């Protein structure tokens, strides 16, 4: 690996590897650098940003209110396309969340120590993305006041959820995913909240941080259980993150619709989810790094590693696209063959080719070191990838539904202003939550960063 610049020195390194954290940090300077972001006066830019995002969020909730009042007929959905943008957005948001869990859990188990710089806000991103995701199916049920029927609550009618339906699997998978991600995130935060508590000046901060840091004392008797709990949560989240998007994909794959009824869906969806999630982590971390001057903590090396993961998962997605085509032909099923030709050359061909361009062509730039170490290139391509991944879900949902078996029941789906408004508004909710997070909580895992500094090693500075 090559270093970004020659500004750091090599003292105390045991291997030739590039240091994960640059700028000759000490334990105290790490604490200061991360804590000061939250302790200093609120920047003007933050107020401007949250004013913008919360306006979108208010629009989101107002439109949802109108949706509940009026019914889901205000959306563009109808026969034959009964699932429109709401389900597209659900899959889009829940997919974005997956990178956060991959970074926090899978890379943790694989001992990828570079994850410590980005795991905290990737996990926050997961939580906020899953919150956005959960809203869409909830409002799509139409009669939201009986949404509790989705849970197995004893009732006088002895009515239970249909556990043979993948839609009910989704309820359990996504709500478990949210709960486990929240717990994982909070457990990671405890030592950092203690750090902030011990630096707090105002009484309010002292009380609030005192409550939420739970009286953490950093004793090894505590670290012992803590580290095992963290490891176990990582171990539990790893199969969970792979299962959640697999379950989401069964919403489609267990139906009989051409273009949906394929066994490749679970791995294909998981790869796509990680792909889109890393793109979102990339977009957000480029902004956060610039705004909060975190160049020492999030180095070009981190971006390079993320872009390699995006290259890999992007090609898995591209492979899935081609295998779908192959299987449609190889199965000898006329309806399958038609569904895929229709995707590429039918009325939604424009969406299909946006998807191909953004998801298959764009990530190819990551082959070149010059391009994958260029912040502008990374920023633009990460946004394009998320556009492409949204279109992937659009293509899957809409193209298959709009033209199924009977040509007499074909149709063309057009979203209404409410579809657009609620989707745009969900970004408002996501960004508002994210802005609150960067203002009030440590955006980088302080105690974990200290653990990967060279001087954290008990053998630091000694010859072996």
């Amino acid at each position: 690996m090559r270093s970004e610049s020659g500004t750091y020195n090599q003292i105390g390194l045991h291997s030739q590897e590039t240091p994960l954290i640059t700028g000759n940090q000490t334990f105290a300077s790490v604490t200061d650098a991360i804590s000061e972001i939250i302790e200093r006066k609120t920047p003007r830019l933050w107020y401007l940003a949250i004013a913008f995002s919360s306006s979108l969020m208010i629009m989101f909730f107002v439109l949802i209110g109108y949706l509940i009042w009026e019914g889901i007929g205000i959306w563009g959905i109808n026969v034959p396309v009964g699932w429109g943008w709401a389900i597209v957005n659900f899959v889009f948001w829940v997919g974005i969340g997956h990178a956060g869990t991959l970074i926090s859990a899978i890379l943790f188990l694989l001992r990828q120590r570079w994850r410590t710089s980005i795991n905290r806000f990737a996990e926050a991103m997961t939580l906020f993305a899953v919150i956005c995701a959960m809203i869409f199916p909830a409002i799509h049920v139409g009669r939201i006041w009986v949404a509790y029927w989705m849970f197995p609550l004893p009732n006088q009618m002895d009515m239970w959820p249909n556990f043979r339906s993948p839609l009910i699997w989704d309820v359990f998978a996504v709500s478990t995913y949210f709960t486990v991600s929240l717990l994982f995130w909070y457990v990671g935060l405890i030592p950092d909240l203690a750090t902030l508590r011990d630096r707090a000046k105002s009484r309010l901060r002292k009380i609030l941080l005192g409550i939420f840091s739970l009286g953490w004392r950093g004793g090894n008797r505590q670290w012992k259980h803590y580290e095992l709990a963290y490891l176990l949560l990582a171990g539990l989240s790893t199969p969970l993150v792979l299962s959640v998007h697999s379950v989401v994909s069964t919403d489609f794959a267990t139906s009989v619709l051409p273009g949906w009824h394929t066994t490749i869906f679970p791995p294909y969806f998981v790869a796509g989810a990680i792909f889109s999630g890393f793109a979102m982590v990339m977009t957000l971390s480029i902004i956060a790094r610039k705004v909060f001057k975190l160049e020492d903590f999030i180095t070009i090396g981190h971006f390079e590693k993320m872009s390699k993961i995006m290259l890999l998962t992007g090609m898995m997605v591209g492979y899935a696209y081609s295998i779908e085509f192959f299987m449609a032909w190889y199965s000898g099923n006329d309806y399958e063959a038609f569904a895929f030709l229709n995707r590429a050359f039918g009325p939604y061909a424009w969406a299909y080719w946006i998807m191909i361009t953004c998801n298959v062509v764009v990530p190819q730039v990551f082959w070149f070191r010059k391009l994958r170490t260029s912040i502008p290139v990374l920023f633009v391509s990460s946004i394009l990838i998320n556009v492409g991944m949204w279109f992937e879900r659009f293509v899957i949902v809409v193209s298959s539904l709009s033209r199924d078996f009977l040509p007499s029941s074909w149709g063309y789906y057009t979203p209404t202003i409410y579809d657009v408004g609620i989707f745009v508004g969900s970004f408002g909710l996501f960004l508002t939550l994210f802005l609150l997070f960067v203002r009030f909580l440590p955006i980088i895992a302080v105690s974990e960063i200290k653990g990967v500094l060279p001087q954290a090693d008990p053998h630091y500075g000694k010859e072996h």
Partner: protein
Amino acid sequence: MSNQVSKTELMIAEFEGPAALIKAAEKIRDAGYMSFDCHSPFPIHGMDKAMGLKRSPLGWIVGMMAIVGGSGAFLLQWWTSAVNYPLIVAGKPFFSFQAYVPVTFGLAVLFGAVSAVLGMLILNKLPRPFHPAFNSSNFIKFSTDGFFVSIEASDPKFDKTESHEFLRSIGGRNIETVGNH
């Protein structure tokens, strides 16, 4: 100050860094102290062994709870769809155990994760916002760059003068005794 110490008191000594803390832990362990702890801003590799601690039992708790959650979920699905109110849906059997797998797995993970967090908190006796250690203005450095040893007064080997002398001899600085004020 008398020589009679209250059981909630705590003696705290500061050490230089991770390596010094590990060495101190080994010496305190060898001296026969039982109720002591080593505080650091991050977990130090090899400290469990240096302090002579056993493995955390949390894995067993989480494993058991995951089994409870998974089997509970499976029984719930079987009972609701095959016993309490059997309904024919899409011609599938009432007891479609294959279809029960995602929810069974989900609840196993959920129970495991919740018990990992609650178990960790219970084993660590947290939340405990008021602890004698927090009465030391020096000790709170532990969350930034301080490395501390604390010995509890309830330890049978604890003696105010002797323990003080011992901690000083193994390299401890800023030694102080704190209690509940």
